[in-house]
C-alpha cells in the first residue's frame, strides 16, 4: 500500500510540474513574446539568406526587445505538405511565406493582415499586387517581393548560329527554329514533366493567346477554347518539329544536366537569370519582353508574409510582419534575392544592372495566375493531358476537351 502511495505521489508531482511548465509556456520566458516564421530559399545562397534574417531579427529586437523571432528556412520541395501537416498538427509557424496560388488553399488558416500594416504602406503597393494577395475582400498577406518571367535568350547560342535578331512573337520563334535545329541547338525548352507547374510552361502561352484558365466568374474552366488550342498547337509545333529537347517532356533533371546548362538552348521563359548565370555567363544573358501572340503577358509571382490564425501572439506577429516588409528591409531583401519590389515608391532597384534592370521593366506585363480554390486541382488534371498532346497521344482538341471534362466536376 505504501508503495502504491509513493507511486501516486510521484505521479501527482510530475503532473503538477508539467502543468506549471505548461502555464509558463506560450508567450516565451520572462514575459517575452515569440514569433516563428517559415520561409524558403528565396535568397539562393543559404549562408547569405541566414545572415540576412539574423541581421533583420537583431535590428527588429532593438526596437522590440520583448519579442523573440525565430526564422526557419525550409527547402522549396514539398513545402505545402510540410506546412499543411504542421498546421493540422497545431505545430504550424506564426508567419509563413506564401505566393498567391497557395492562398486559397490556406484561406481558412490565415489571419487577414491589413490591420497590422499602416495605410501609407497599403496604398504604396501596386494595385495588381494588392489584388493578388486579396481574397473575398480580405488582404491575406503582406507583399515582400515580385518576380518576372520574361523571355531570356543565350547570346552565345545566337552567335554560334549566326542569328542576329531575337524573337518577339510566336511566329518569330517558329521561323528561326529550323536554323537552330540545323546547327544542333534547340530554339527553346518546354518543361512538360508533371512535377512542373503550368504557371511557368503552358499558362503563359494560354494567356498570350488571349485565353485564361477559368471563366471570369471562376465557375467553369476556360482553357478548352480557341485560345487554348492555339497555345497547345504552338507548343506541339515546337515539339513535333524537333525544336525542343523531348526528354524534358517527361523528366525533370537538375538544371546542370539539361541542354540549357550546356548552352544548347536559344531562349527560355520558365527560368530566372540567377538559374542560368553560372552556365551562360551574365554577359550572355539577353532579356527580352514576353513573347507576343494575341497578348504580351507572362507569369510573375508575388511573395508575401502571411500570419496564420494559430499565431500565439498576433500583435507580436503583426509587428514582425510590418517590420520585415517595411520599405528598407524589403529593398534589402529584394536586391539580395534578385527579385523586385511590390511597392510604387521604391523605384528601380536595378537601374545599373543590365540583366535585372531590363527584367524589372516587364513587371507590369505579368500576372500571378489563377487565384481560385481549385486552381491546383485543375492544374493536376490539365497537366497530364497537355503532356499526352505533346507526346503525340492526343490532338490538342482531344486533350483540352478531356481535361475540361475532368476539371468541371471539381468546380462543383
Amino acid at each position, binding site marked *: 500500500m505504501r508503495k502504491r502511495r509513493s507511486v501516486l505521489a510521484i505521479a501527482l508531482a510530475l503532473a503538477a510540474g508539467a502543468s506549471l511548465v505548461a502555464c509558463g509556456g506560450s508567450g516565451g520566458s520572462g514575459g517575452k513574446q515569440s514569433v516563428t516564421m517559415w520561409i524558403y530559399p528565396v535568397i539562393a545562397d543559404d549562408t547569405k539568406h541566414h545572415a540576412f534574417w539574423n541581421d533583420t531579427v537583431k535590428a527588429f529586437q532593438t526596437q522590440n526587445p520583448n519579442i523573440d523571432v525565430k526564422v526557419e528556412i525550409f527547402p522549396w520541395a514539398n513545402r505545402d505538405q510540410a506546412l499543411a501537416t504542421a498546421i493540422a498538427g497545431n505545430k504550424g509557424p506564426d508567419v509563413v511565406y506564401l505566393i498567391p496560388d497557395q492562398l486559397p488553399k490556406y484561406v481558412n488558416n490565415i489571419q487577414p493582415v491589413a490591420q497590422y500594416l499602416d495605410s501609407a504602406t497599403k496604398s504604396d503597393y501596386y494595385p495588381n499586387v494588392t489584388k493578388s494577395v486579396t481574397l473575398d475582400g480580405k488582404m491575406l498577406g503582406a507583399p515582400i517581393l515580385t518576380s518576372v518571367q520574361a523571355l531570356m535568350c543565350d547570346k552565345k547560342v545566337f552567335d554560334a548560329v549566326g542569328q542576329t535578331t531575337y524573337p518577339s512573337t510566336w511566329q518569330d520563334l517558329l521561323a528561326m527554329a529550323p536554323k537552330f535545329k540545323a546547327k544542333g541547338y534547340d530554339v527553346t525548352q518546354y518543361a512538360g514533366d508533371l512535377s512542373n507547374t503550368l504557371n511557368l510552361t503552358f499558362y503563359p502561352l494560354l494567356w498570350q493567346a488571349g485565353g485564361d484558365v477559368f471563366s471570369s466568374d471562376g465557375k467553369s474552366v476556360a482553357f478548352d477554347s480557341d485560345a487554348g488550342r492555339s497555345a497547345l498547337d504552338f507548343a506541339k509545333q515546337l515539339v513535333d518539329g524537333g525544336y525542343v529537347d523531348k526528354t524534358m517532356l517527361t523528366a525533370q533533371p537538375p538544371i546542370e544536366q539539361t541542354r540549357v546548362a550546356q548552352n544548347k538552348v536559344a531562349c527560355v521563359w520558365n527560368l530566372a537569370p540567377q538559374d542560368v548565370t553560372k552556365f551562360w555567363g551574365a554577359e550572355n544573358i539577353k532579356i527580352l519582353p514576353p513573347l507576343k501572340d494575341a497578348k504580351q503577358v507572362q507569369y510573375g509571382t508575388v511573395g508575401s508574409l502571411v500570419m496564420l490564425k494559430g499565431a500565439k501572439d498576433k500583435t507580436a506577429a503583426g509587428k514582425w510582419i510590418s517590420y520585415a516588409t517595411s520599405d528598407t528591409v524589403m529593398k534589402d531583401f529584394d536586391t539580395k534575392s534578385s527579385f523586385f519590389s511590390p511597392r510604387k515608391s521604391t523605384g528601380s532597384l536595378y537601374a545599373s544592372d543590365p540583366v535585372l534592370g531590363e527584367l524589372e521593366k516587364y513587371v507590369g506585363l505579368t500576372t500571378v495566375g489563377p487565384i481560385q480554390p481549385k486552381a491546383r486541382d485543375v492544374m493536376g488534371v490539365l497537366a*497530364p493531358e497537355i503532356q499526352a498532346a505533346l507526346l503525340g497521344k492526343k490532338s490538342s482538341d482531344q486533350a483540352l476537351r478531356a481535361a475540361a471534362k475532368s476539371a468541371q466536376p471539381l468546380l462543383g
Partner: protein
Amino acid sequence: MANVSDDWAGSRRGTRRAEPDRPQQRRARRVNWREARSGLLFVLPCFLLFVVFRFGPAIAGGVLAFTDYAIGGEAHWKGLANFRRLVDDPTFWSALRVTVIYTVLAVPLTMAVALGMALLVRRSFRGTKLLRSIFFLPVVTSLVLAGVIFTWVFSANGPWSSLMRLLGLPHGSWIADSRLVIPALVLVSVWSRFGYGMLILLARLQDIPTELEEAALTDGAGPVQRFRHIVLPHLRPALFFVAVIETTVSFQVFDTVYVMTSGGPVRASYTLVFALYDQGFHYFDLGYASAIGLALFVMTLIVALIQRSTLGRQQ
C-alpha cells in the same frame, strides 16, 4: 434423452466443482497470472504504439472518408458523397487499372525470382551466406535511394538503354515511355522485394525432411518431379504468405513512383496510393483521399481473401 456430450460436459463440470483447490494449484495459477501479467506489460508499449499510430489513424481515416475534411478546415458529414465521386472519377479508375496491371506483373515475377533464388542458395556451398546477404540487401535499401539510382539506370543514356541497344531492342528512356514505365517499375519492385520472399521460402525449404527427397531420388524421380511433388506442396503455406504480402505491397506502391515518375508520363504510372497522396497533400482534400484509402483497403482485403480461398485452402 441426454446425449453423450451433455453427460461429458456435466461430468466435467461436476468433477471440477467437486475437486477442491489445492494450495499447489492455487500457487501455480498465481505464478501463471504473474507471468501472463509481465508478458502483457512487455507487449503493452508495442500494443499502445500500434493503437496510436496504426489502428487509430486507420479508424480516423475510415471516418474521414465520409466527410469533406480539408486540412485546416472543418469536417462535415457527407455520407457516401466521396464514394459516389470515386465511381464517377476517371482518374480513380485509371489509377486502379495502373495498380492492377502493376500488381499482376510484379507479384508473380517477384515470387518466381524469390523462389529461384531460394532454391539456388538452399544448399550450403562456399559463399552461400554471402550470397544470401547480397540477395537480401535490396530489402533493407531505401526505396527512395533505389528510385534515384534506377531513374538513371532507365534513363535514355543509362545502362539499361545501352543494353537494349546492344541486344538490338528498342532503346531509350523506359520511364519516359508510357508503355514501358510500368515494366520498369516492376523490375525495380522485383529487385527490391525478392530478397524478402526468398528468406521466407528458404526457411520453409530447409524444413523439408531430406529423407523425402532421398526416397524420391531412389525411386528415380527427376528434379522436376521432386520439385513438383515434394518441394512445392511443402512450400504452399509460405508461397501463400509471400503472395499475400507481395500483393498488399504492390497495391500500395508509392515511393518508387514518387521518385521516378511522379505518376507520369501521361498518368501511365499514376497508382492508387499516388492518387491518394495527390488528393491529400496536393489538393488537401483529405475526405476524398480517405475514401480512396478505404476503397484500396477493401480491394486488398478481397484479393487477400480470394488468395486465401485458392492458394491457402489446404492450410
